[in-house]
């Protein structure tokens, strides 16, 4: 594998609102496992804010991770050995392999060597090229910075690269503001592949470009991959880009990879509810299920939802996905005080208490029966209700028992890995 990340986690410290508060931690990337083989194109897809760019930057060592590791150019059998050490809790064995392959353990000349083996192409070519440098200086910068070749040789290499990315040679003396968006991105690509890296991260390489130009850049990328066998991670929120480019697909949600596998499986036959929703939103022939529109916002990463992070928006969520008393109470209030207000005592109040208890106060006799019927009726729409395990009367109060929850792990299912309790297998289901 050119790159293999294990349990990669990146947290950002955010200044607290009040001057005396503790700084808050925002987990942008959460325990991500990902790997890229030689010449392989791996797609990372997800909504904006799901942590794709942070993952890309951490893979290249531009950000240092809060936990986990990134191994560079590691033979497959060594990686298997490493995974074995991790599984068996052999910290010493794992550390010795990290010493050898982790990009965060390298310094000085060795780091430079690794650096010249990887690079990144950014989303916005308007800001990723220094406006005060001409194309020649931009493209030769990695060559000179990493002592890859002598300056006079670098000029020839620059001309070669311009040709490679389909730009005329005299562009070498132009400045970024004299180029169109597509031309700029070609220059950025030439810079990225200047040292013939083994690994390239492309962060939304076409999102800032006109639709007509996007296809040209993508086919150029494919040509380059074919010719130089560069392993690539393509980050995008665009399923179409992934399905055109990638061999492997990773779907990211709230910093976690929720589904990961070969493109044919993940795109044509998604199994994770989030992937299904994402793909159903793409117009055209890929639509298999009916279009699913996700309700609600992407989760707060400082205080992520418990259980499965996707449960508040998941159309298939069920009892053990992580429902809290507050979430259930919000839905119950609507039912008790609004939709079915007539069936309940006027004074009936839904309240939550410390320790996550959920109670309906001032209930009349017989309300349990009504409640039970309504819960069973509405379960299909209000997934939170599936977490109610039973009712218990104490005087005028009805206490609702809430099921325990689980945090999904990565499960093997139908040729891919998926992080959803639906696929946990019978032994794991509560």
């Amino acid at each position, binding site marked *: 594998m050119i790159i293999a990340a294990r349990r990669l986690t990146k947290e950002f410290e955010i200044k607290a609102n009040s001057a005396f508060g503790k700084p808050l931690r925002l987990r942008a990337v959460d325990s991500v496992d990902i790997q890229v083989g030689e010449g392989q194109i791996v797609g990372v897809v997800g909504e904006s804010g799901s942590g794709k760019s942070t993952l890309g930057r951490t893979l290249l060592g531009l950000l240092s991770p809060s936990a986990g590791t990134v191994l560079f150019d590691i033979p497959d059998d060594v990686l298997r050995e490493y995974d074995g050490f991790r599984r068996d809790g052999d910290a010493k064995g794992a550390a010795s392999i990290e010493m050898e392959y982790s990009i965060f353990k390298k310094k000085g000349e060795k780091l430079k060597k690794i650096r010249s083996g990887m690079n990144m192409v*950014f989303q*916005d070519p308007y800001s990723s090229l220094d*406006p005060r440098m001409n194309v020649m200086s931009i493209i030769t910068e990695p060559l000179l910075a*990493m002592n890859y070749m002598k300056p006079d040789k670098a000029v020839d290499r620059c001309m070669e690269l311009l040709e490679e990315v389909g730009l005329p040679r005299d562009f070498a*003396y132009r400045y970024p503001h004299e180029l169109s968006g597509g031309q700029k991105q070609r220059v950025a690509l030439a810079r990225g592949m200047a040292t013939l890296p083994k690994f390239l991260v492309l962060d939304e390489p076409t999102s800032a470009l006109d639709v007509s130009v996007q296809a040209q850049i993508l086919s150029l990328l494919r040509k380059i991959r074919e010719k130089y066998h560069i392993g690539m991670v393509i980050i995008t929120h665009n399923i179409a880009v992934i399905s055109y480019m990638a061999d492997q697909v990773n779907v990211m949600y709230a910093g976690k990879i929720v589904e990961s596998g070969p493109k044919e499986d993940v795109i044509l036959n998604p199994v994770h509810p989030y992937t299904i929703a994402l793909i159903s939103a793409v117009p055209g022939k890929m639509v298999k299920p009916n279009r699913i529109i996700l309700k609600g916002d992407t989760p707060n990463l400082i205080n992520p939802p418990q259980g499965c992070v996707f449960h508040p928006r998941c159309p298939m969520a069920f009892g053990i996905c992580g429902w809290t008393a507050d979430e259930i109470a919000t839905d119950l209030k609507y039912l008790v005080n609004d939709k079915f207000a007539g069936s309940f005592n006027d004074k009936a109040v839904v309240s939550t208490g410390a320790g996550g208890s959920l109670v309906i106060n001032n209930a009349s006799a017989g309300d349990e029966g009504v409640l039970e019927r309504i819960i069973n009726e509405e379960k299909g729409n209000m997934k939170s209700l599936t977490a109610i395990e039973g009712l218990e009367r104490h005087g005028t109060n009805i206490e609702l028992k809430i099921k325990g929850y689980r945090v999904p792990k990565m499960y093997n299912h139908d040729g891919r890995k998926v992080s959803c309790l639906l696929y946990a297998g019978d032994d794991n289901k509560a």
Partner: protein
Amino acid sequence: MNEERAKRWDNTKLSIRVFLANRTALVGLIIVLIYVADALIMQFDPGLLGITQVNTLVPNFTNPVPLPPSWAHPFGTTFPGVDLYTSILKAIRIDLFYSILVVAVGAVAGAVIGVVSATVGGLLDETVMRITDIFFSIPYLILALAIGFILGRSLMYMSLALALVWWPLYARYTRSQTLSTKEFTYVEAAKASGVSRTRIMFRHILPNALPPVFIQISLDLGSIMVIFSTLAFIGFIANAKVPELGYLTSLGLNYVQTAPWAVIFPGVAITVFALAVNLLGDGLRDVIDPRRRS
């Protein structure tokens, strides 16, 4: 490489074209050049304009009351019988020199402190910011006066006092420019390309962060001259014979109703310079902005 030289020349031509396209900036440039030319002539060959004593005002006590403009005195005279035309020509050299001194010392110190503060960050940055806060909380004229009176009442100390008042402004501005430039993706792209931190600083951050600071500095030359002459006007300099525009203005103050020219001409000499510098700065902004060039 010939291509490269041709391209450079094209660029220079483009810069000139962009600047010339801004007519008012051109006027500003011409006026500033006239002031500079005058200062140089006064420095090296004052005889060229028939002036002998460049460093002092020449009084005429037999006829001390201001005279209106005439052939002998094109701008009239001021108290005590000082010819305004020649005095203004002399004073421009002094004012220009000391204004440049203030700006150079204040700006260089401020810019260096700002860049270091932004780069090192942490406690140092915090301390520098609090110090500049203290400077900002005191009105600058009062602060300059206080510092000047401690140091001593001379032109040199007066400019030092102003430089001391001025550096926090440049420190702040340079710091914020540096910090915002750091956020551009091209800085991260350079990091990804293995460029060292020092090289990123000198190749990417400073070349992009400093030009707006330079523009600000050149713009300030005009206001500094105004403040410098204000200090002289309110009586900061002890030596009564120095040809300085603010001091020259103050000489005619008692006659402002009967002889307004004695106040107007030196005052206009200050204002016109400040205005011209501003116009010039506008044109320079166009030239350094890569986006306005296309």
